[in-house]
């Protein structure tokens, strides 16, 4: 399966230049761009690992592409995303988020059904990858 999270997961994988263009859009809006990675892509896994702090005062998206590639060197077998954070009043949250790196194979998720009374089913969505301990998932 292909993980469909983020703004551009239905488009062909982004090139470094695509990443630069999108990151520059965020920077020009005054948003802080950061790079995060994970080996647990569960839809509700909010806190991916931070590849450094958000780049608050960085004016040039080339630096974002540089950090993405540095992150790939160490975590190229995992999911990596770029997010943009907007600190303006009334928002103070994420404005953009898109995946820039995927593991070679994406095992996806299974649905676990716990059958209860009255036909009620409690659902759990579980990432196949997390059957292995952290660090031993994917490659």
């Amino acid at each position, binding site marked *: 399966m292909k993980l469909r999270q983020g703004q551009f997961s239905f488009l062909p994988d982004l090139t470094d230049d695509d990443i630069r*263009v999108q990151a520059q859009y965020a920077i020009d809006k005054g948003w802080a761009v950061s790079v995060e990675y994970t080996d647990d892509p569960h839809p509700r896994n909010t806190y991916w690992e931070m590849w450094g702090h958000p780049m608050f005062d960085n004016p040039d998206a080339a630096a974002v592409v540089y950090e993405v590639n540095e992150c790939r060197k160490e975590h190229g077998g995992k999911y990596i995303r770029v997010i943009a954070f907007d600190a303006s009043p009334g928002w103070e949250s994420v404005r953009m988020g898109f995946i820039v790196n995927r593991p070679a194979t994406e095992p*996806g998720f299974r649905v676990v059904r716990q059958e209860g009374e009255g036909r009620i*089913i409690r659902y759990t969505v579980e990432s196949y990858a997390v059957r292995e301990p952290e660090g031993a998932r994917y490659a």
Partner: protein
Amino acid sequence: MNEMSNQTVTDAKKRYSAGVMKYAQMGYWEPDYEPKETDVIALFRITPQDGVDAVEAAAAVAGESSTATWTVVWTDRLTACEKYRAKAYRVDPVPGSEGEFFAYIAYDLDLFEGGSIANLTASIIGNVFGFKPLKALRLEDMRLPVAYVKTFQGPATGIVVERERLNCYGRPLLGATVKPKLGLSGRNYGRVVYEALKGGLDFTKDDENINSQPFMHWRDRFLYCMEAVNRASAATGEVKGTYLNVTAGTMEEMYARAEFAKSLGSVIVMIDLVIGYTAIQSMAKWARDNDMILHLHRAGHSTYTRQRSHGVSFRVIAKWMRLAGVDHLHAGTVVGKLEGDPATTKGYYDIFREERNPMALQNGIFFDQEWASLNKMMPVASGGIHAGQMHQLLTYLGEDVVLQFGGGTIGHPHGIEAGAQANRVALEAMVFARNAGRDIWNEGEDILRDAARSCTPLKQALDVWKDVSFDYASTDAPDFAPTPEVSA
């Protein structure tokens, strides 16, 4: 009628002697009045009967929507009646519409119970719309003072937290209403939900009149829909939702359905506008207490919002609903099959999504409105839209909106999943192009064609619907051109 005849009678003996007196003379017309920051202000479009003076008509509206009755009553004198009288303070002819006037009326804050849309509306639109001296009356806009706004909960979740819960940023959300809206069994209904969500939509939606009918009872629908939601979530790795319509005949039944939706793990429930303002506020409170996004379908609104001369403008309904506390509300598409010109629709969207609305007569917004950090509502664009209009939709409606392609998903020649995928690819390609600095308004069709090269379902969608548009004159356009000559 001479000018003098509209002056308030100040001699108490004359003012309160039994009998009938003009509303203007009773004190409901105060041309020198300066509205206080804490006043509620209403702007009415009034069409007086032939021979009725516009100022007297405005004073009558002020009177009938506050303290007055048809005759003088001595019991007024037991109250601080000057405070409780609403005051018409300005009457302007409507540009280009002979016989119609804009009447500005100010109400003291103490006339209203905090946190109650029912109380606010019982005054403002209670009796006065049937008043005989008027041919027609329309509530065009309201200025709600911060002091009053702060007495309401506001949207249970709001745009920002909704996005955080859905883990979805930087693009409009995508939805579809399940069709046919009546007749599908629970099992068949869930199939549509599954295919559409798996294909790339974020949400599917019950229609306004899908409640609990012989062909599909509500529990069956909820159970099959949640199976579909969870399967689709696993297939895509995304948070998915389906608006489970909990509209029912009693509050007790609505709470029971909402609780069941919660127990199944749904992120969102839905209600219809026809359940009434108090029921909406109760469900908004329930939604806040239970971490639930609350979708409101504006079923029935066109019966009073559509005609320009009589009723209540949708911009006023939008303000009431932001106070009442819903998270999603339909607000028009501009390009689709339902009413809404671009300028008026922009006014609605601004009311939903902005911290502050400055006066914008060209968008039908007559007052500065502060929202005092009340959450923002997510507008929903639904009705006759398709992937080929993506550049227009993104330009007109922006990013914080749910684009709902019902027919435009389910009617795809190669099935529901293909339809959903076409919409998602078109959307992502258009957002990508906009962010990259391209002129999507003029290059939109090229952008879609390019995206369709690597997405056959999009190519098929563009081919099927390329000539579909709904180009009719709007019945409710703003009265003022973009450069208004009327001062504030």
